[in-house]
């Protein structure tokens, strides 16, 4: 998906002179993940450049640029290194439109490579979506496929709201081929990635692929799992998920972040509110352990893999059984 993101930046730079790309090492190096590869040389360093190493300053200057009509796309090098900018994001970026009754719009995109699975040392694998999705005024999106990576990044850059664009870093090297440019469904809408009748697996970003794998395996055992890719996490349009769960009666949310207070809690609570009388069993959450992200050699135990998802699927089937027997 790295190549698709690169192309999206490229096309946005070519189309709109107000777009600029900056951050740490995004210039000649092309970013530590090479997502901005060759942009500096192809568009000139006026359009893609390295800034001083200070995330709050990066977001703060982006806010100022956007106040004056530009569309900055800034990169935070890793998830945990976006925290120094937290105050700018929460107290300014998210609120500026509201504070000024729409007089100031801030079309800023903050690209954040997030999540684990690449053997990174501490502070390089956080899944920080819950911090942003709880902050009204931000759009928080995350692509699960290269096509979405392209299309959603284009849409994010064109969007007049500030967008926290979470890039599932372990999917940068995903080999799924895709013809670019491509326009997928608007990012505000979730999509059903795989239809199914027995249970709804709700995933986003890095876990979409994992969920699809799990669904394949479940199918082999006769359980037809529907996979929904949420895409835009906030504001959340729950229509797709609600419709799916009302059909299947069972749901599991999957994400990498620690389960406690994670985004999955919102999905579970909301789906339960909307679908209570259709549910055969509680909505389950499969996610990271409630511990600091582990060192590389132990991260496999933290990350929600196919087995852990299938165990939840099994448990729900047992639970449904329980309902039929006692309910």
């Amino acid at each position, binding site marked *: 998906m790295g190549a698709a993101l690169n192309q999206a930046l490229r096309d946005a730079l070519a189309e709109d002179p107000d777009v*600029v790309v900056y951050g740490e090492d995004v210039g000649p190096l092309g970013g530590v993940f090479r997502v901005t590869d060759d942009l500096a040389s192809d568009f000139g360093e*006026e359009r893609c450049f390295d*800034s*001083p190493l*200070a995330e*709050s*300053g990066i*977001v*703060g*200057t*982006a*806010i*100022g*640029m*956007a*106040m*004056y*009509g*530009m569309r*900055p796309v800034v990169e935070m090098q890793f998830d945990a290194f976006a925290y*120094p900018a937290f*105050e*700018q994001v929460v*107290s*300014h970026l998210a*609120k*500026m*439109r*509201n*504070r*000024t*009754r*729409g*007089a*100031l*719009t801030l079309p800023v995109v903050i690209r954040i490579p997030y999540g684990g699975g690449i053997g990174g040392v501490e502070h390089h694998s956080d899944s920080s979506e819950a911090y942003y999705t709880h902050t*009204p*005024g931000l*759009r928080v999106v995350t692509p699960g496929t290269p096509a979405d990576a392209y299309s959603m990044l284009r849409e994010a850059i064109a*969007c*007049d*709201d500030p967008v926290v664009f979470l890039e599932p870093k372990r999917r940068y090297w995903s080999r799924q081929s895709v013809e670019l440019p491509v326009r997928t469904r608007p990012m*505000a809408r979730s999509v059903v990635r795989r239809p199914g009748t027995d249970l709804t697996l709700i995933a986003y970003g890095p876990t979409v692929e994992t969920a699809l794998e799990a669904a394949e395996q479940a199918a082999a055992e006769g359980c037809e799992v529907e996979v929904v890719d949420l895409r835009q996490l906030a*504001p*959340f*349009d*729950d*229509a797709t998920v609600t419709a799916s769960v009302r059909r299947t009666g069972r749901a599991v949310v999957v994400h990498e972040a620690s389960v406690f207070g994670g985004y999955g809690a919102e999905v579970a609570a909301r789906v339960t509110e909307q679908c209570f009388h259709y549910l055969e069993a509680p909505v389950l959450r499969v996610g990271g352990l409630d511990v600091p992200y582990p060192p590389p050699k132990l991260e496999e135990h933290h990350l929600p893999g196919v087995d852990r998802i299938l165990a939840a699927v099994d448990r729900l089937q047992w639970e449904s059984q329980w309902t039929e027997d006692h309910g």
Partner: protein
Amino acid sequence: MKHTDERSRPVPPLPSQEPVRLVDRHGRRHEHSSFTAPDHAVLAELHRAMVIGRRFNQQASTLARQGRLAVYPSSKGQEAAQVGGVLALSEQDWLFPSYRDSVAMVTHGVDPVKTLTLFRGDWHSGYNPHHYRCAPQCTPLATNASHAVGLTYAARRKGRDVAALVLMGDGATSEGDAHEAYNFAAVWNTPVVFLIQNNHWAISVPVHRQSAAPTLAHKAVGYGIRGYNVDGNDAAAVHAVVAHALAEARAGHGPAIVEALTYRVDPHTNSDAPQRYRDPAEVAYWSERDPLTRLEALLRNEQIVDDGLLEIYERDAERVAGRVRERMAGQDRLDPASLFTDVYATVPPSLERQRRELAEELREV
């Protein structure tokens, strides 16, 4: 080789520790080797703006005491710093104020009533920043400084000659955001002047607990930019120094930090208890150095203004105060539905639902 060349950046001239002063506290001109006082018209305009500003401070403080404003952070005593800084701006320039800078904003042209929207509690920011070239009043300290850097950077990219004045307090300089903004401005060479109103206190904390620097202007050295110390109660000096720094900055010679040494005569806000932390003698000391008295003395000594003109200033000030009073006496109808607009560019379905629910709640009451 580049890496060796880099080391040959010159040390910018150190700020003098003696603040630039052009008018002494008795209203006499004071010679300075590098700066000269602005011309008569500007001196008169500085005074007029201070008279209005002082009256505005009084009026707003009264409204806060009466409970018509939720809170008001008065800048009484700091009028020269605010007015001197703002009047040095060119027409196209932007102002980035903090919560204490209502007088600066009024001087910059923002509708006085709208500067109080925040403190009245009607809405967060009461005006269109583009209309007045004035960013929203900023409460999280030092956080709007980098916005000014970004804005002037964008303006330059768009071929516009726009400079910015950032107002910040002595306390705010301790924040990491101040540092990052100074540094970005210096590295990107954007035309920003950071005007530090050192009013000696950050609420109850004296400036010597904020910094061990010789002066706050000396911070400029570490960014390779110019720093200036100025008597913040001398409007002429503030104007001269900020005008010079802005001219240098827009000429591409880099941003600057200007420290205006002044004093907050009133409490931090109406709910502060200054008797807990400061000696009344200190307030008395500074009241003798009042910026208005001083400039008025000069203007009278040199017959730049006469009683008639001074009366007109007073009347202008009264008119502003009166208008503020009137508008604050009434109660604006605030529509709860406005909570939901302008959170996003369009209202998302989830918020639409909450809007409906709130409307129903309110119907039921």
